[in-house]
């Protein structure tokens, strides 16, 4: 059974179709990179996986649990699916430590001490234990995004979704975030990553999905994708982002 299974998913905003019959899957332990020009629907697609964006047609199963089924407890499902956002979305009024503990305590019902200890452990992993008592506003963008990854990890997720995790960062901070992600990928975390970082894709992705106008145009193993993408559109896209 695939970790994430997306079948014929379509979504409309009014008359405008943002997703057109998208079908793909992410196997357990697989790293799948989703790329494509802006407006291609990639961010929308990744947000349908944990039900943050509703969709009108199709099915999505996460670890066998149907996201599209209204009887599914979406909060419970989301608690097990880590998500990292473009703008970090740490909670500004809480310290780093509190950011990491909040959902562990409120959703997973862990004891405060346990949640705190676990949070600090993940902070150490992303190299930020010294900043546990700072507020998000006192950290750099790269540090904030690493805290956001630690926050997601402290929920013991079965898979991780990354929605353009480095596109809001200053160039010199991109690598510190990518390093954490590469390490995660090497440990066997199941990851679906929307990104333009083709270096990251080359290094750790198993498959690359290319989207355009709401459609999955290309869904290929990494080597095939970077070797000879079949669609003209994907070739043009790659030519544009790789040669500058």
């Amino acid at each position: 059974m695939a970790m994430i299974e997306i079948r014929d998913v379509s979504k409309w905003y009014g008359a405008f179709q943002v997703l057109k019959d998208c079908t793909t899957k992410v196997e357990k332990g697989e790293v799948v990179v989703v790329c494509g020009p802006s407006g291609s629907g990639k961010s929308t697609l990744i947000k349908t996986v944990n039900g943050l964006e509703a969709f009108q047609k199709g099915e999505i199963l996460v670890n066998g649990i149907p996201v599209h089924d209204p009887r599914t407890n979406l909060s419970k499902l989301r608690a097990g699916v880590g998500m990292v956002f473009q703008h970090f979305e740490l909670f500004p009024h809480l310290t780093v430590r509190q950011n990491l503990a909040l959902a562990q305590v409120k959703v997973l019902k862990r004891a405060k001490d346990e949640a705190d200890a676990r949070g600090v452990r993940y902070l150490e992993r992303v190299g930020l234990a010294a900043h546990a008592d700072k507020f998000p506003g006192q950290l750099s963008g790269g540090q904030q995004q690493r805290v956001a990854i630690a926050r997601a990890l402290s929920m013991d997720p079965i898979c991780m979704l990354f929605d353009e995790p480095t596109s809001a960062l200053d160039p010199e901070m991109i690598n510190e975030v990518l390093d954490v992600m590469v390490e995660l990928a090497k440990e066997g975390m199941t990851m679906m990553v929307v990104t333009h970082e083709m270096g990251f894709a080359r290094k750790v992705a198993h498959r690359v999905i290319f989207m355009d106008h709401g459609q999955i145009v290309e869904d290929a193993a990494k080597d095939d994708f970077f070797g000879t993408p079949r669609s003209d559109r994907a070739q043009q896209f790659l030519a544009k982002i790789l040669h500058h």
Partner: protein
Amino acid sequence: MNYNWNWGVFFQQTPDGDAFYWEWIVSGLLWTLAVSAAAWLIALVLGSVIGVIRTTERTWLVRLGNAWVELFRNIPLLVQMFLWYFVIPEFIPPLKGWMTSTEPIYAQFLAAVLCLGLFTSARIAEQVRAGIQSLPRGQRMAGRALGLSEVQVYRHVLLPMAFRIVIPPLTSETMNLIKNSSIALTIGLMELTFRSREMGEYTFNFFEAFSAATIIYIAIAMTANRVMAWVERRAAVPGYIAGGGR
């Protein structure tokens, strides 16, 4: 201007002979504070609830909240005061019965508190809504993505920031509420403005009476302002720049 100020008037006996004029002013001040405090509590609680439901995705709740705000914002405060005191009790017999049997000042107090509380709640609801909507959309998503319920997202993620953002407009709403409470003199509530006018009419020392009222209103409003400024400083988030720039 040729006017002989007579500040000693405050220490003269009132016609009933059972009090000094300064006691009237103090008693008026206490009623002003009581009405303002009670109305403020109602306004803050109801305003927060109505503000929150207007930011949910449930259409009927949003409509209810919008209707609430339109209703209380679009009728003049003075008319609302008369409605609460003279008209609405006619439709609620038990309320009418209580209002005619109790001391008039309690009936006036209730009407004034309801009127000012609900009127101000509409204004606070508008500010709370704006505060919540000024937060990045991703904050709500991040809360939901962690598995927090909708209520938990409001309680732990959205409202703590939204309230911090709305402290300055909430301050001016608080000051408005205190000043608006003087409208209650029109239904006979013996609050500060009522007592000042009454004292002026008895003594013809209007200047002294209203000077006292003016100074007291300024002092209350400034105190409220300082308290809110203190709350704002206490609640400030280190490193957070309002607006966030995105």
